[in-house]
Every structure is written in structure tokens, then in C-alpha cells.
């Protein structure tokens, strides 16, 4: 069923009896052309673009829990394309363009809101770095504006401009950045893929791979064996666990990242704001809650919950840059498990096992990448070649000495 204003009117006149579940709940078939492990944002968008752009509809998405139960439902919903390096920025700009047409493409309201992303700078050196970054963004076709302190003040008069240690000198603004309704992104992709015949199979955990002569032939699951010509692993957060079943060791550590939401407030914060002197970022949801976060906890974890030192650090960042929210109460906080890679950049690549494709290592930047990640993974599956914007996301790049290290922190995952 296509959603439209006419449909709402018609259903309203006929007692709303015609609405159907947005996707089916099929039992797994014995074999598929493509099996995707992981029914989160990236797995579902891969299935969506495979079926809608590349004409491959004999696809199953296997999800261990329920659809969208991982990081697609646990992030801070920010979309942006403000990277520096050549291996990253064109990819994230492709993602931004896909976000802009997403709702029309999959006929679902994902509440994409281009309310702007503002990165604050607090020193002359940081302003120079942002000027360089802005130029890199513009070269890739993205938009960027360098604001001086007066420009930031006009946009966000409530910030702490005269902080003795971290005065605000200006900011880098991407007006096309913003936020999206994260769950609706998963639901929209699931519905869009399901409408083309993709089977989305929930409560189906992959327990092993069937590998013959170095080629994957299918997967073992909690709901039986499933044969496949190509298997795609989109299980970021648990990539190491899943691919260890295929005998692979990855350049990844799993870390916990916490996020926070305050009680609902009247509209206060115009877009996404990031503090440049600590690690703190904040936006306001359409329900009014302030959604914010900071650093990862910094130690290996699969626990989906963090510890108090990071809570304190995030709140200190908030008070340093935006003291007006000091009286707001935190309503909830939670943690998600991230694939932290050795250079802070992701992987979309073949693996040493033939016909097994890996999508992961998204660190804490996976949400904004959801559309391009799915598109580029589907491109790799369908054509056998990487998409032109994703050629650097190779699994062997450390061995070749070609990391994509935005921060320049080296092979230390908890510093990215």
C-alpha cells in the first residue's frame, strides 16, 4: 500500500480498516541469492537498494532480535557530511544527498529535518582547521559556511561566548545537515524492501557459516540452515563476533557509547551544536527533549550500558558551552555498542572468504551513513565492484599502510 494524503482520506472514510502491517513476517526459505546478516539500518538499507536500485529481490535479512533493535534505535539521529579526508567526504556527501530524497524514495516519513549542524571553534588554530575542512566539504559538493563569533551569536545567542578558557571564536556551519527520526529510517527501509519481495526474518540468529573451499555457501541459523550465493554481514557493534564464526579477525574493538535525553522543553536549540574544546554534541528532538552525547567510555564492551565518569564528562561539556541547560533534568541515558576501527573509518569490502561481504567498523558515525552505506554495499553485491565513493573502505588498508585516519590518532580505537 502506498502512503499518501488520498489514502489517509480514504481510510478515514472507511473506518481505517484497510491499514496493513508495514512488512510481512515470513518464515525463512531454504535458499536466497543474497542473505544479509543484521536487520538494523545498514542491513535494511542494503536490502532496500538491492531490491529497488539494482533489481535483486531474492534477498533475506536475518535479524537476531527485532527489527531495528540495535544502534539504529540508539543513536543521536544526526545527519551531516562534514568530513575532511578524500576517502570519507564524497561518501558522506552521497549519503547526505540520499537523505534529501529519502522520504520520497521510500514513501515513508523519516522526519528528515535539515536544521543545520554547527561545529564551534575556540582557538585560532581550530578556526584554520575548520576553514580547511569547509573547503574540503565544498570540493566534494557539500555546503559549508565559516561563521565568526558574531555569526554564531546571531544563530545561538544562548551559548557561553566569554568562557575564560574556551571562548567561542566562530564555527563551521553545514546548513544541509540536521536530524532524522532514527526508528522511522529503519521502518521505511524495511517497508520499502519488503514491498519488493525481500524477506525480513526476525528472531533469527546466525550461528555459523557454511564455507566450502574458501567460498561461503550459506549460513546456519537458529531457524535452520539457509543457502545463499552471497552473504553480507551488516552487524556493526558485533562484527567481530559474527565474522569470528567465519574464522576472521578484524581490525575492530567493540566499545560502548552513551547518549542522553532530557525532559521535554519548549523549542530552544535551533539545530545540532557541537562543542569544539571537549566532546559534546546536542540537538533538540521534535518532542522537545534535548538529545546529547560525548565520548565513548573507552574500554571494550558489549554491554549496551556505560559508566558514570562519562556521564559526568558529558554534563561538564554541556555546562561549559551551554550553561542555560544546567537546570534541565536528564530523563534517560543508554549505551550502544560500536565497532571502533583502527583508524575511525568504516569497511565496505569483500573478505578473504569468497562471496562473503563485510559492512562494518562504523565507529560512532553509522547513522548518518545509513543510506550511502546501503547503497554502496548493494553496489558491491550487485556489480562486484566498489561504488566510486567507497573505494577506500578496504579491509586490508592497514596491511597496505593506507588508513583513513580523520583524527590522526593512530591504531588506537578508543581515541577515534
Amino acid at each position: 500500500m502506498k502512503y499518501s494524503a488520498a489514502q489517509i482520506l480514504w481510510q478515514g472514510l472507511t473506518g481505517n480498516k484497510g491499514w496493513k502491517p508495514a512488512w510481512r513476517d515470513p518464515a525463512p526459505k531454504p535458499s536466497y541469492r543474497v542473505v544479509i546478516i543484521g536487520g538494523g539500518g545498514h542491513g535494511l538499507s542494503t536490502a532496500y537498494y538491492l531490491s529497488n536500485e539494482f533489481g535483486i529481490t531474492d534477498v533475506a535479512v536475518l535479524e537476531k532480535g527485532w527489527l531495528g533493535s540495535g544502534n539504529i534505535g540508539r543513536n543521536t539521529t544526526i545527519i551531516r557530511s562534514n568530513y575532511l579526508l578524500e576517502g570519507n567526504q564524497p561518501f558522506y556527501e552521497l549519503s547526505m544527498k540520499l537523505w534529501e530524497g529519502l522520504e520520497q524514495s521510500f514513501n515513508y516519513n523519516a522526519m528528515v529535518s535539515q536544521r543545520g549542524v554547527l561545529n564551534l571553534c575556540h582557538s585560532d588554530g581550530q578556526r584554520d582547521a575548520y576553514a580547511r575542512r569547509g573547503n574540503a566539504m565544498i570540493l566534494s559538493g557539500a555546503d559549508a559556511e565559516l561563521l565568526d563569533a558574531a555569526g554564531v551569536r546571531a544563530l545561538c545567542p544562548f551559548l557561553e561566548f566569554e568562557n575564560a578558557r574556551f571562548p567561542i571564536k566562530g564555527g563551521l556551519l553545514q546548513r544541509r545537515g540536521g536530524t532524522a527520526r532514527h526508528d522511522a529510517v529503519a521502518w521505511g527501509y524495511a517497508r520499502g524492501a519488503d514491498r519488493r519481495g525481500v524477506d525480513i526474518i526476525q528472531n533469527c540468529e546466525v550461528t555459523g557459516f557454511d564455507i566450502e573451499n574458501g567460498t561461503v555457501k550459506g549460513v546456519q541459523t537458529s531457524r535452520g540452515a539457509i543457502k545463499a550465493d552471497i552473504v553480507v554481514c551488516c552487524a556493526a557493534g558485533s562484527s567481530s563476533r559474527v565474522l569470528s564464526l567465519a574464522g576472521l579477525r578484524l581490525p575492530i574493538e567493540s566499545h560502548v557509547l552513551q547518549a542522553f535525553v532530557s525532559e521535554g522543553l519548549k523549542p530552544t536549540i535551533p539545530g545540532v551544536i557541537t562543542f569544539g574544546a571537549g566532546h559534546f554534541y546536542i540537538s533538540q528532538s521534535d518532542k522537545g527533549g534535548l538529545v546529547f552525547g560525548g565520548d565513548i567510555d573507552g574500554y571494550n564492551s558489549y554491554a549496551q550500558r556505560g559508566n558514570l565518569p562519562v556521564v559526568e564528562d558529558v554534563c561538564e561539556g554541556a555546562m561549559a558551552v551551554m550553561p542555560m541547560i544546567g537546570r534541565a533534568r536528564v530523563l534517560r541515558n543508554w549505551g550502544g555498542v560500536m565497532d571502533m576501527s583502527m583508524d575511525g573509518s568504516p569497511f565496505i569490502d569483500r573478505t578473504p572468504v569468497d562471496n562473503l561481504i563485510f559492512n562494518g567498523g562504523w565507529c560512532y558515525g553509522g547513522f548518518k551513513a545509513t543510506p550511502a552505506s546501503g547503497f554502496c554495499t548493494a553496489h558491491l553485491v550487485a556489480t562486484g565492484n566498489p561504488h566510486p565513493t567507497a573505494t577506500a573502505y578496504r579491509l586490508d588498508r592497514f596491511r597496505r599502510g593506507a588508513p583513513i585516519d580523520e583524527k590522526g590518532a593512530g591504531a588506537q580505537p578508543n581515541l577515534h
Partner: protein
Amino acid sequence: MIINHPLLGPRDASEFTYLGDASLIDRPDGGDIDAFHAYLHLRDNPAGEHRELWYHEYGDRSWLVVTRNTLTHEITQVELARDVARAKGRSR
């Protein structure tokens, strides 16, 4: 998390910085590029018991090998990394 330091007793984890898997003690000798690549970049990243290196940066600056469960954050054993390395014959 509280790390029970072998010399100083229970200390808050925020006094420490985290390096990673304790196998980083076993640095291979130079020459074999593949072995060094694996040492530097590849990790087991287990869900469950994990032996890992913590540095008491805001304390006595000792390196510890902490055995911790990555699913529950429960710490079951804390050793001086010096002792672990000596037991492996890596130090005098």
C-alpha cells in the same frame, strides 16, 4: 568500575587509561610484516572474558593486566603487567 589495584587497593577506573587487549605485551620482533600487522591492527574482541591493559595514569603509573567481562563489566582478576610479562619471559 572499581579496579582492585594489587598494590594500592580498590581505585576508580577513571584514574586509569585504557590501552587494549593484553596480547599487546607480546610484541613480535621486527622483520615479519604480517605478524606485526596482526599485532598492531587485528583483535580477538571477545564478548565475555577479556584480558586487557590499563595504565594507572593518575596514580602510581603502573601497568595492570585486568581480566574483565565485556558483557557485564565485572572484573575478576587484576595483576601487575610487569609480573605477567616476566612470567612470559619478556622481561628480567
